[in-house]
């Protein structure tokens, strides 16, 4: 199939905005509709658009398959590690250890003042969800684009 210039230009102009929108979905997943899985798939669709319009080689020059493989595996290990840190800090597997750390710090600063401690914990609570969203976003983007790049290369 012959490729036209329109496809080339549109893919080149559009894919950065797709990456940006994917990053937005990942990073605001805890306050607005979106999240790690959705944002990751949007980022991956940007990579797939590059691969389909400009060839697998152009996409792999930006996102080498070897590095995507590493991201996919490391993402899973980091997710597991984020859960195990919760066990070490005493909030349970995949417990919110950001809030726990903030409440301990606030309790040390204001001895006995539990209201301030809970307020500090609530203020920092969404950070753990943000961290998990970020890990999942990277992992899903690497995984989905890796599947498609592998299949494109084969055909």
């Amino acid at each position, binding site marked *: 199939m012959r490729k036209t210039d329109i496809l080339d230009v549109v893919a080149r102009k559009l894919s950065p905005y797709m990456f940006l929108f994917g990053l937005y979905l990942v990073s605001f997943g805890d306050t607005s509709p979106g999240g790690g899985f959705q944002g990751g798939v949007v980022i991956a669709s940007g990579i797939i658009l590059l691969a389909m319009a400009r060839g697998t080689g152009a996409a792999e020059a930006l996102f080498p398959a070897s590095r995507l493989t590493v991201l996919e595996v490391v993402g899973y290990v980091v997710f597991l590690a984020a859960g195990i840190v919760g066990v070490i800090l005493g909030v349970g597997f995949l417990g919110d250890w950001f809030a726990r750390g903030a409440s301990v710090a606030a309790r040390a600063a204001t001895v006995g003042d539990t209201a301030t401690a809970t307020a500090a914990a609530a203020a920092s609570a*969404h950070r753990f969800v943000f961290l998990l969203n970020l890990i999942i976003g990277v992992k899903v983007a690497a995984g989905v684009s890796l599947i498609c790049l*592998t299949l494109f290369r084969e055909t």
Partner: protein
Amino acid sequence: MGRIVELLAIAVVALFLVTVLSPAGTGNATLRDTVVANGVHDTGAVNLVTAIYLGYRAYDTLGETIVLLLAVSGVMVLVKR
């Protein structure tokens, strides 16, 4: 004849869906109200979907990431062969 049976089947399915999915008949109203009332406080995520899948059901999400990892591994093994 066949048309009548089809319409009858569609009507039965529609009736089933209406009774099951209507707000008053939703299975577990207690669970829904609990999540709506405590979700933001418990997990810190304003988006309640995120509150469920990364807060209350983080184990489930861990399993989903394993599924993705296995899917990628499977595709790469099958294609390389």
